[in-house]
């Protein structure tokens, strides 16, 4: 690292890398691999493939290849949930979407760093644009859900889509 005297001359910004210790710790805690989140819980990891950081080529995690059985289970769980979900008022649905938005915001920094490590895009894109936009989307649709009765009268839920 250059000395203070040298930097007084060049006035370079210098490198200021985003800290990723928290994400590395989390990835280490999941080094046995990630399963699929189906019906409220994670499946056991199996048929694992390497997930690499495109910027460095290093493997950062292992994820499971989804099987036909996984897809069937997911669709079945969605169909089961469809009934109760359809009965929820707009307000109740809004609460769910809003809660997701809040949780994303709470973990915004973590998710941005993880997204950059997984995707390879610069941290500025993830941190300043993409992840805040994810939260923004959920807030937006929570807003519409709240107004569903007034704005979309007579609309009926269609079913499970994929």
């Amino acid at each position, binding site marked *: *690292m*250059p*000395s*203070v*005297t040298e*930097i*007084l*001359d*060049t*006035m*370079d*910004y*210098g490198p*200021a890398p985003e800290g990723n210790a928290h994400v590395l710790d989390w990835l280490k805690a999941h080094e046995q691999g990630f399963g699929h989140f189906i019906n409220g819980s994670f499946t056991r990891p199996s048929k694992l493939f390497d997930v690499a950081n495109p910027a460095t080529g290093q493997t950062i995690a292992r994820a499971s290849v989804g099987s036909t059985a996984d897809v069937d289970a997911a669709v079945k769980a969605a169909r089961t949930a469809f009934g109760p979900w359809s009965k929820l008022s707009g307000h109740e649905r809004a609460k769910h979407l809003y809660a997701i938005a809040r949780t994303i915001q709470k973990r915004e920094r973590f998710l941005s760093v993880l997204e950059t490590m997984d995707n390879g895009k610069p941290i*500025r894109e993830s941190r*300043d644009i993409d992840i805040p936009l994810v939260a923004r989307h959920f807030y937006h649709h929570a807003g519409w859900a709240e107004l569903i009765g007034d704005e979309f009268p007579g609309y009926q839920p269609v079913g499970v889509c994929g």
Partner: protein
Amino acid sequence: MKMNESAPVGASYGFASVARNPGAPLTLDWFEDVQVNLSAAERRAASLPARRSVKKNYQAAWLVKALQCIDLTTLAGDDTPGRVHRLCAKARRPLRDDIVAALGLNDIPTVGAVCVYPAMVAPAVKALEGSGIPVASVATGFPAGLTPLPQRLAEIRYAVDQGAKEIDIVIHRAQVLLQDWAALYDEVAAMREACGGAHMKAILATGDLKTLRNVYKASMVAMQAGADFIKTSTGKEDVNATLPVSLTMVRALRDYGELTGFQIGFKPAGGLKTAKDAMNWMILMKEELGRRWLEPDLFRIGASSMLADIERQLEHHVTGRYASTTNQPLA
């Protein structure tokens, strides 16, 4: 002189000295039809602090540079020669010796200037004798600027006579609000003439000007009239230096440079209290104008309590701890 050129890495920062702005005839079409997009200016201003992160040795160096650009100021009704004397002692030795040594600096850095009211120029000059630090004086009926013109010009001559090397004048805001550019130009040009060899900073009092368009226009007229620096505020307005206003002014400054080839200095004043504020304004300068505008002959910060925060951050850099604020008294 080309604008927006950063010095090559490793180049000595003994830059070529700034050629003095001779001014230009009042030229309305340099500014009359300007439009400033307020939302875009606010967005650009908001993104500047967020995009750049300056850490560790880089942050320490930037803070030392900020310190060297401060116009250490006291403009209070209860100023006394004693207070001015203490301020000047601080100006000469703004950092403790152990911090200077720990930063690896050969010499103790000094501030850019000391800024006072005309009646306090003589005590300041006396207290700074031999230090090389210039005394800047406010003048022309600071802060409101609404005394008769002959008296305002006499005030400049008095301050210069007393030893001020720099004069911070205030413009007559009504002239901007009424779009009377000829009157504004003539007054500022007369002030420049009264300054003689002393450098003139034109305070636009942007908080009074209300629109960014007015800020741009007033900047241009002041530069055409011969200002060496343009300055945001007196520090006494409701709203003083903000990043959007500063962005507008440096764009005007940049445009003037492209039209004439002359480099004008910029000084934000009022409301800059923390080391982070200093960093944000320096990022603005570097992003908009380039490396050359990170030197005290083209960039000053009008501040007083900021010095204590810079000291505090530098002490943290060398020791790893934050000292109590009593450790950084302003003299």
